[in-house]
C-alpha cells in the first residue's frame, strides 16, 4: 500500500490533507448532484409545467408556513430551491468547464507556439493578449453577446445564450493560459530534452505537444482550477449586469441575481441558499487548486 502511494505521491498527499478531502467531497457531491439533476430533482426548471406559481415563496421546512415537499423552500416562481440549485450548478459547471476548455485550448495552443517560435509570432500573440487584457471580461462578454445577437437568426439566439456566454468567459480567460504556457515554454525551450528533440529533427507540433506540453501541465492545471472558480463567478456577475443568462435558464449566478431582489423582503432563502452553495463550490474548487499547486511544486516534494 505504502509503495503504491509512494508511486502516486499526489494520492498519498491527498489522503493526508483533510482540507483537500473535504473540498473534494463537496465538489464531488455537487458534481454528482448536478449530473444527476434530471433524475433526482423534484421539478425541472426547464419544464414550465412541472411547477406552479401557486407554490411560490414557500420557506424552508424549518420555518413556519413551509411545505415539507420543498425542503429548502421555493422561489418566487414556485420552483423548488433544491431542484433549481441542482440544475443551476449543472449549468454553471457546464459553462465553467466548457469556457475553461476553450480558453485552455486556445491559450495553451497560442502560448506554446509563441514560446516555441518566439520572435515576431510571439510579439503578435502577446499584443493580442494585451488587447484582450485591455478589454475587461465584462466588456468582452458584451461584445460577444452583441455580435451574436447581431449575426445570429433570432430564433436560435435564445438557445445560444449559453454558448455565447461560454465563449465570452472563455475569451476573457485565455490570456492567463497563454501567458503561463508561454513563460513555461520559454523555460522548457532551454531544457536539453527539447533541444535533443529539435536536433533530432522532430516536427514542431510533436515537440510542442508531445514533449513540452506534458512538462508544463502542472501550472496550467492550477490555473484551470482557479479559473474554473472565476468562470463561475464571472457568469454570476454578468448575469447581475444583465448580460448573462435569462432567468428561465437558472445558473447559480442567475439564481443569486434573482435572489438579490429578496435580500430584504424576508424570503432570505431565495438569495442565501444559492449563495451558500456557490461559495461552497468555489471554495472547494479553490482548495483543490491549492492542493494541486502543492502537489506540482517540485520544492515541496
Amino acid at each position: 500500500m505504502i509503495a503504491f502511494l509512494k508511486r502516486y505521491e499526489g494520492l498519498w498527499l491527498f489522503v493526508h490533507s483533510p482540507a483537500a478531502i473535504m473540498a473534494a467531497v463537496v465538489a464531488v457531491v455537487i458534481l454528482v448532484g448536478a449530473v444527476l439533476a434530471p433524475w433526482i430533482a423534484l421539478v425541472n426548471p426547464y419544464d414550465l409545467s412541472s411547477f406552479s406559481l401557486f407554490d411560490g415563496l414557500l420557506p424552508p421546512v424549518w420555518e413556519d408556513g413551509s411545505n415539507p415537499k420543498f425542503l429548502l423552500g421555493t422561489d418566487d416562481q414556485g420552483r423548488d430551491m433544491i431542484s433549481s440549485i441542482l440544475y443551476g450548478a449543472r449549468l454553471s459547471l457546464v459553462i465553467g468547464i466548457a469556457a475553461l476548455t476553450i480558453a485552455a485550448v486556445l491559450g495553451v495552443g497560442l502560448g506554446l507556439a509563441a514560446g516555441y517560435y518566439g520572435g515576431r509570432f510571439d510579439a503578435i500573440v502577446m499584443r493580442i493578449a494585451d488587447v484582450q487584457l485591455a478589454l475587461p471580461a465584462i466588456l468582452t462578454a458584451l461584445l460577444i453577446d452583441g455580435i451574436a445577437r447581431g449575426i445570429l437568426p433570432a430564433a436560435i439566439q435564445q438557445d445560444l445564450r449559453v454558448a455565447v456566454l461560454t465563449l465570452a468567459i472563455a475569451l476573457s480567460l485565455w490570456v492567463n493560459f497563454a501567458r503561463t504556457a508561454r513563460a513555461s515554454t520559454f523555460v522548457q525551450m532551454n531544457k536539453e530534452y527539447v533541444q535533443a528533440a529539435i536536433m533530432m529533427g522532430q516536427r514542431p507540433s510533436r515537440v510542442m505537444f508531445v514533449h513540452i506540453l506534458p512538462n508544463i501541465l502542472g501550472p496550467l492545471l492550477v490555473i484551470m482550477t482557479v479559473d474554473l472558480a472565476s468562470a463561475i463567478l464571472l457568469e454570476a456577475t454578468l448575469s447581475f449586469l444583465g448580460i448573462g443568462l435569462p432567468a428561465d435558464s437558472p445558473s447559480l449566478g442567475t439564481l443569486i441575481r434573482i435572489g438579490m431582489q429578496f435580500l430584504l423582503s424576508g424570503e432570505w432563502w431565495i438569495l442565501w441558499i444559492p449563495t451558500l452553495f456557490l461559495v461552497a463550490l468555489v471554495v472547494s474548487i479553490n482548495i483543490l487548486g491549492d492542493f494541486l499547486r502543492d502537489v506540482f511544486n517540485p520544492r515541496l516534494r
Partner: protein
Amino acid sequence: MLTIKDLAVKFPSRFGDVSAIEDVDMTIAPGEIHGLVGESGAGKSTVGAAVIGLLSTPGYIAGGELTLGDTDLRSLSEQEAHAIRGDRISMIFQDPQTSLNPLMTIEDQLVETIQAHSDVSQGAAVKRAVDLLEEIGIDNAATRIKAYPHQFSGGMRQRVVIALAICTDPELIIADEPTTALDVAVQSQVLDLIRRLAKDRQIAFMLITHDIGVIAQIADRVTVMRKGRVMETGDTEQVLSRPTHPYTRALMDAVPPLDHRITRFRTPTDAETAPPGSIPDNAAERWLLEGQQHELLGLTLDGIHLSFPGTRTSIWRKPDPFVALQDINLTIRPGSIMGLVGESGSGKSTLAKAITGLIAPTSGTMFLGDNVLPAGRARKRNDPSRQLIQMVFQDPYSSLNSRHRIGDILSEPLWLYGFVNDAAERRSLAAAMLELVGMAPDAIDKYPHQFSGGQRQRVAVARALLARPRFLICDEPTSALDVSIQAEILNLLKDLQSVFGLTILFISHNLAVVRQMSDDIAVLRNGKIEEIGSTEGMFERPQADYTKKLLALTPVMPRTWQV
C-alpha cells in the same frame, strides 16, 4: 574548537523520518581547513547546515552534540542562534551568482552585516567594508562598492561573498562548494584567499567539496562521508595517499589524473554495470553493428564565425553583436575523439549547437565527411546528418523528458528515423540497448526521475546510440556527476567508441577528464581556438600561454600521493 559528536539529522517526509546523517564526529581547530568530501547526497551540506542552524525545513537534529568553543550550539534559543550566525559562524554558498541579493548594492549588504553584529556608525562600517574588499583583492574598492552584484564577475562576486562571511570576524566559516561554479583561474584565487584567511586570521574552515584536487591542495585534514556516515577522517595526506577505508580507496581510483592517461578507471565491479561487450550476443549491439551504412566519418569546420545579436537599448545605435565564435578551423579525424576545453562562456556549447544545427553560424562551412553540412534552418528535418550526428547533454536531469517513460524515450529515434516499424520490436531493442549501457532492462517502464544522474546519463547515451550515429557530441557529459559515477560513464563511452568506431567531440572544462578521453585537444577561449594538437603533446608541451596557465592552476593531487 568546533566539535561534532554523534550528530544525527532527520528529515520528516511523507513516508516517515529519513535519516540524512548519523553518527557524524568531527573536530575543527582554529585556523584549520577541514575538507569534507563524499559523493552527492552523502550529507556534507547537511552537516554544515546543522552547525550553523539553517537546516532546510523540515529537517531537525535528532541527536548528538554540537559545540563551538564552550557554547553548546544545540541549547541555543532561536534568537541566540541567530545572533551567533555571522558573528561566530559564517557560511559561503556554492553559487556566487545567487548568493547575493540582486536588488541591493554591495555596500548595503556589507554595511548591514557589519552593523548587525557590532555597534558602529555608518561611516565606520563603510570604511571597514572598503578595507575588507581591498584586503580580499578588489581594486578600486571605494567606488566598486557602490555597484550591484550583477555588475561584478563571478570571481569577484565570490570574493564579495567571502568578504561578507568574514566581515564580522567569525571563528568558523562553512564553505559549501565555494569554487565549484568558478573557472580554474578564479578558483585558485579563491582558494589562495581561503588559505590566507585561515593562516592570518586563524579562521577555521569547513570546506565542503567533491573535488579531491581542491582538498589535496588546501585542506589540512579531511573527512570522507558516504550515505550520511563518516567513512574516514584524518590528515589530508594520509587519507588521500594511504586510505584505510575501501570506499576512500575506490573514490581515489575514480579521480582522473591530470598528468597521465589511464586506459580504464577502476570501479567497484558492480553486477549492474557490467562493461559493454562483455554481454554475450547483445541484440542491440548486433543491430548497431549491422546498421553501419557509413564508414567512419570525420568533421571539418572551416572558418566558422558566429555572433549573437546584442540587445537593443537605443533607437539610434544598432547594438553591437556578441561574438561567440571566431574563425574556428577544426578537423576531427574519422574515428577519433576530439577534446574541447575552455572556461565557462568560451563558446564550447555554442560550437556544439552549431554542429547540431540548433543555431546557424554567421559564416563558415561545416563538412561531415565529404559533404557540406547545412547550417541552422537550412538543415532540413530529414537531412541525413540529423541521424548521423547525435549528442549527449550536460545535465542528465533535463536532457530526458521527465514525463516520458524510458521506453518511449529510447524508441523515439527508432521510430523517427524509420529504423524499426514494429512497436514491440522497438521495445525489445530498447531493452537490449539498456542492457548494453549497463542498466537493468526493467528500467524501460520507469520514468527518468526514478533514476540517479549517472543512470540517466546512461539512458541519454543509449538514446544517442539508437539513432545509429556516426558522430557523437558529448557536451560535458559528466560535469554534473560524482567522480565515481563520472568514471563509470567515461569507461562506458570509451568502450562504446572502441566497439562502434564512433567519432566523438568531447567537451569539458575539466582538463583531467579530457586527457583521459581524447586523442586530440582544442583549447577554446573567448570564442577563439588558442591551441590545437594531440593530447599527449598538449599536456606535455603546451604551446599557448593560456594552456600553460590552465595546466598550472588546475588543482591536482601531488603525484607522490597517488596510489
